[in-house]
């Protein structure tokens, strides 16, 4: 293991330790994000030069190019960043809280519940207006159900994961049944939503996800302190002064809240929540000394992954019809696998 350098900072009653590599990682992620944002604003059916884009951003007018940027590309970009960050954060929270790298918010049953809720809405109402509320309601209800079923004098990770898995499988079976019962056209539309897309985001979506991140984000990052101690085992964490069941419950609430808002603006983008944390940990110093903020890293990777997927989605010739959700997996999965193979060759773990 290479020598790690840790920098201590003190400012009045506040203090902490930072690994400089974490800062480097943060800067790197930011750079990647800004570059990709530039590409997102640049690409599309309406050609605009970088100079034009900059002018529009600073001094918007009422012409068509401005509308394209301000009402199509920019909201889409911001929703992508926000939802990606929220997904990444939620996934990191669940995985660290459960001490299980295979966990994801799906473990709460949210994903399957949202899919079920969405399809119920589609079957019961003919309009697409109720799809989203149905999905959120379904997701929150199944998360609550999982919690109810798994709670027995506390929340043991094993029981939570198994309960969430069982309920998810049940709900996905219902989804399969509904998909088979619908007429083909409606099924095709439902399929689109199920895969996760945010093709027509509006500024209201941006506001929603920003509020969610602004309120739940800091609360989640605050829990990073507890999560690092929870990694030592329930007994030691309790001995160090944490009320472990309460902490678990609160983190679960935060993860579900973040996921619900992210799904609300971007649909159920698969894989971002699951892969952001492992990728971030392996790329940054959070793996070693544990002095970085792995949660922030996961949020950053989630945002980058989503924006990248959206970029690919809109750049490919046939991509116009394929939703972003397809690409979050197609980029995220190889990234995760690449990290795994790197470890095989390095002999780490």
């Amino acid at each position, binding site marked *: *293991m290479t*020598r*790690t350098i840790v920098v*201590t900072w*003190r400012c009045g*009653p*506040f*203090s*902490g*330790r930072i690994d400089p590599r974490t800062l480097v990682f943060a800067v790197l992620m930011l750079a990647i994000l800004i570059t990709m944002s530039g590409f997102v604003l640049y690409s599309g059916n309406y050609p605009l030069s970088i100079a034009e884009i900059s002018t529009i951003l600073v001094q918007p007018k009422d012409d068509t190019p401005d509308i394209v940027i301000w009402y199509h590309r920019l909201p889409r970009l911001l929703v992508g960043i926000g939802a990606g960050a929220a997904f990444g954060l939620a996934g990191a929270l669940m995985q660290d809280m459960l*001490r299980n790298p295979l966990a994801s918010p799906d473990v709460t049953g949210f994903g399957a519940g949202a899919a079920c809720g969405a399809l119920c809405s589609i079957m019961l109402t003919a309009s697409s207006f109720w799809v989203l509320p149905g999905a959120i309601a379904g997701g929150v209800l199944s998360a609550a159900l999982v919690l109810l079923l798994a709670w027995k004098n506390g929340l043991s990770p094993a029981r939570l994961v198994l309960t969430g898995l069982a309920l998810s499988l049940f709900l996905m079976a219902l989804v399969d049944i509904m998909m088979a019962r619908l007429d083909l056209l409606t099924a095709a539309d439902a399929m689109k939503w199920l895969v996760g897309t945010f093709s027509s985001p509006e500024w209201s979506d941006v506001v929603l996800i920003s509020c969610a991140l602004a309120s739940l984000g800091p609360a989640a990052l*605050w829990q*990073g*302190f507890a999560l*690092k*101690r929870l*990694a*030592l*085992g329930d*007994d*030691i964490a*309790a*001995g*160090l*002064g*944490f*009320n472990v069941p309460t902490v678990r419950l609160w983190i679960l609430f935060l993860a579900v809240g973040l996921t619900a808002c992210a799904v609300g603006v971007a649909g159920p983008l698969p894989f971002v929540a699951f892969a952001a944390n492992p990728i971030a940990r392996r790329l940054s110093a959070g*793996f*070693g*000394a*544990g*002095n970085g903020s792995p949660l922030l890293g996961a949020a950053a990777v989630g945002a980058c992954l989503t924006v990248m997927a959206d970029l690919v989605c809109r750049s490919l010739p046939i991509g116009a019809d394929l939703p972003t959700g397809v690409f979050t997996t197609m980029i995220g999965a190889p990234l995760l696998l690449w990290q795994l193979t790197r470890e095989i060759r390095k002999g780490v773990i």
Partner: protein
Amino acid sequence: MATFPFPLSAKGLTLTRPVGLVLDKLALAVPRGKVSVVIGPNASGKSTLLRCLARLLRPDEGEVLLEGAPVNLQKSKHVARQMAILPQNSTVPEYLRVFDLVARGRTPWQSPLSQWSVADALAVDRALALAGVEEYSLRPLSELSGGQRQRAFIAMILAQDAPILLLDEPTTFLDLPHQIELLELVRKLNRESGKTVVMVLHDINLAARFADHVFALRGGKVHREGTPGDVVTEATMREIFALDCLVIPDPLHGCPHVIPR
């Protein structure tokens, strides 16, 4: 402020498991500033008792008092500043360096915004020195031997700066010299820093040598308590362990020494 003679005590502790009654209206009082050792046969409830005292387990009945106040009513962080626990099996990430493990011990004195105050740094350095783990403090746990690991964990609970230490079978997996080394360290902490120590040990002779006060458990109750001389007797060994033995004074240290027949 009046100090209670017993910083940690239990009254009427009862705990039932599927296998049966583990603790049966158990009562005990831990004397301040002494090394107390809990002995007893397997499944007599030793670890369970320690975990109840440490508020890791909630008994079905009865209560545990920390400085006279019920431990379950106090904030966990406040309790952690007064009582440090070393549990038996800990699944700790193997890549963690010793220094970072010990630093975690400062948690009851920290908050998310204040993670490394001057007091924290000093306490960790002191703990590393006391436990004798300075030379490998930057190595990950995976590279340490069993004895070194155990000392690292001791350093962690030392960093916690709590006046009461609870240790659940701290000598498991250690060879004899390391067992003695660890227990002498514990005794030094007690003599020099005045820490109250409660340990579960399975080796009666080690218990007799290092304890100031012994609690002998049987059937979920405290069968006998007192100094090693009072408790480690042939009669008690027979009552508790159904062990026929000879107890002689240890020629080197004077404490009772059990020799099974």
